[in-house]
């Protein structure tokens, strides 16, 4: 272990990537799942160990092949990366453990090895984005994770996933290409791709037009990948028609990793070097964040398919994260970052519960879910707890991030009250859409007495409960995400006067 310890940032990516090549060969039933879960668990252990090191002794840097930094490829894990690594790897391992039965039902056996290989590639790509410290490697890992997640989304039995994934592919590629144009323009002006080096060299040319254009291209491209309103149109269908377990995994982390890159660029590289960047960032993104919060929640209130409803709720939740960031204060950014963690917990548990319902119910439309709570009280319990966390009831993780967000908004003075009002209105809308589901499930009459051909695996219900209880645990003692988030915010905004 000690010999490997310095190489953990690289192993974070290498382990899932190498295992994915092996997984394709594992034909016997269940073996591919086992190997995939084992690799993912190992990656999670690495993420925990890295977080431990970051908390104890600050950022970890790793030089690929020992070439010194601006010339060689550097990997860097700081507080923000550590938090993202926990979310990504945690979501993957939890989903895989819970998803054995659901994936067996939805993915044909002979295609499973390929599916799990794509899963590990997506995991490796997402982890790679987070650990990479140079702009071009971020692009390559972004494409690895995107290509793999297109395969995952299209892997299910629902044919409507195919047009959805095609749209996702077009928009994802356009987003990534915009990012590539931005990186190219910066490279043209500074001659470097390493983020830390770029941050220094960009000072001299910060007022030149190519740099401003680059900032625009990068922000828009990443906003497209992060599904920030109004660039979210690919998200609802992709989440709705994907295999249930893929929805859990992607909803918990995929868009948030793009958001991470956006924060990394806009605050770490541009902030402090581009004149008026803070004001422009706030002026463009705050209205979009607010619109996303309101419209996402409003559409969710009228949506009839539970997965689609939760997908639109995700659009609103991404709005909360952006709202926190667009305040451009330490408190606001901390709230936005901690919401990345808390929302992953809440949405993860909700989609796990939905996957459990889906195993039994005829479809996930509300009318087919009538009275299902009485047949599956345990799953329903987990759903309600996670729903409360999504709304932001005190004592759950969702409350922590909303509390910090409101505190940060109040610091703005009178204008902040408008933000607080919008946050409260949107929370009430969340009450409405969660209540609609709860009402149908608990009080509704069963649509038809179709006997359930399968019983839900206790593993899925158990994991859903574990994640739901994690919502309560991190609602009562939010030290870990808060420490990481506030450290991350302080580092991102170190140029703030």
């Amino acid at each position, binding site marked *: 272990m000690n010999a490997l310890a310095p190489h953990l940032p690289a192993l974070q990516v290498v382990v899932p990537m190498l295992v994915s090549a092996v997984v394709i060969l594992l034909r016997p039933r269940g073996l591919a799942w086992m190997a995939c879960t084992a690799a993912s668990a190992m990656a999670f252990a690495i993420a925990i160990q890295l977080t431990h090191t970051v908390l104890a002794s600050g950022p970890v840097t790793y030089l690929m092949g020992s070439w010194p930094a601006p010339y060689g490829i550097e990997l860097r894990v700081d507080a923000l990366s550590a938090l993202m690594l926990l979310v990504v790897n945690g979501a993957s391992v939890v989903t895989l453990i819970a998803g054995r039965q659901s994936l067996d039902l939805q993915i044909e056996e002979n295609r499973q090895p390929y599916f799990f290989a794509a899963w590990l590639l997506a995991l490796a790509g997402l982890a790679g984005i987070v650990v990479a410290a140079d702009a*071009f490697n971020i692009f390559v890992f972004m494409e690895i994770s995107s290509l793999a997640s*297109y395969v995952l989304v299209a892997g299910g039995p629902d*044919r409507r996933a*195919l*047009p959805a994934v*095609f749209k996702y*592919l*077009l928009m994802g*590629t356009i987003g990534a290409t915009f990012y590539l144009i931005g990186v190219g323009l910066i490279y043209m002006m500074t001659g470097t791709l390493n983020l830390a080096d770029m941050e220094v060299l960009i000072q001299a040319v910060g007022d030149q037009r190519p740099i401003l254009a680059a900032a625009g291209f990068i922000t828009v491209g990443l906003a497209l990948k992060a599904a920030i309103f109004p660039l979210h149109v690919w998200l609802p269908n992709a989440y709705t028609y994907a295999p249930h377990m893929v929805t859990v995994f992607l909803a918990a982390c995929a868009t948030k990793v793009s958001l991470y890159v956006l924060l990394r660029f806009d605050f770490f590289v541009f902030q402090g070097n581009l004149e008026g960047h803070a004001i422009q960032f706030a002026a463009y993104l705050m209205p979009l964040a607010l619109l996303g919060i309101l419209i996402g929640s409003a559409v969710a209130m009228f949506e009839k398919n539970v997965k689609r409803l939760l997908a639109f709720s995700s659009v609103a939740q991404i709005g909360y994260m952006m709202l926190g960031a667009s305040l451009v204060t330490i408190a606001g950014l901390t709230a936005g970052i901690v919401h990345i963690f808390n929302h992953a917990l809440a949405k993860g548990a909700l989609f796990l519960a939905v996957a459990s319902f889906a195993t039994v119910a005829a479809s996930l439309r509300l009318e087919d879910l009538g009275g299902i709570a009485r047949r599956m009280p345990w799953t329903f319990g987990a759903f309600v707890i996670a729903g409360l966390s999504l709304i932001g009831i005190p004592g759950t993780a969702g409350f922590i991030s909303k509390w910090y967000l409101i505190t940060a908004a109040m610091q703005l003075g009178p204008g902040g009250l408008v933000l607080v009002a919008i946050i409260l209105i949107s929370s009430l809308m969340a009450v409405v859409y969660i209540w609609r589901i709860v009402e149908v499930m608990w009080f509704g009459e069963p649509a038809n007495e179709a006997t359930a051909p399968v019983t839900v695996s206790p593993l899925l219900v158990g994991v859903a409960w574990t994640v739901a209880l994690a919502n309560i645990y991190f609602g009562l003692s939010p030290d870990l995400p808060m420490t990481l988030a506030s450290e991350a915010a302080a580092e991102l905004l170190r140029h703030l006067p």
Partner: protein
Amino acid sequence: MELLGLYHYWVFAILLMIGFYAVIAKLNLVKKLIGLSLFQSAVFLLYITMGKVELGTAPIFSDSGSGIFSNPLPQVLILTAIVVGISTTALGLGIVVRIKEEYGSIEEDEIQEIDRR
């Protein structure tokens, strides 16, 4: 003449917009993918032209020769990006084949019509 001197940027911008237009406006899924490829190729050209040095030769180090090289790094970067572009196109075409199998059409409006039914 400055405008013409920057012609390689014009090529980049026009090609980019032709591709972007095709992605948005065409209903045929294969034509959309062709547009996407054009869109990506435009960016490749941007990278390649930025590494060009006037009178520069291929970046091969030797004792003879002028000693002025084109910058090899953008070329290496774009080699990677081309691979990414090919993978994206291949995956996109694969999805189009699956859509044709399931829906019997590769026109976006017809597919939406079938889904609405």
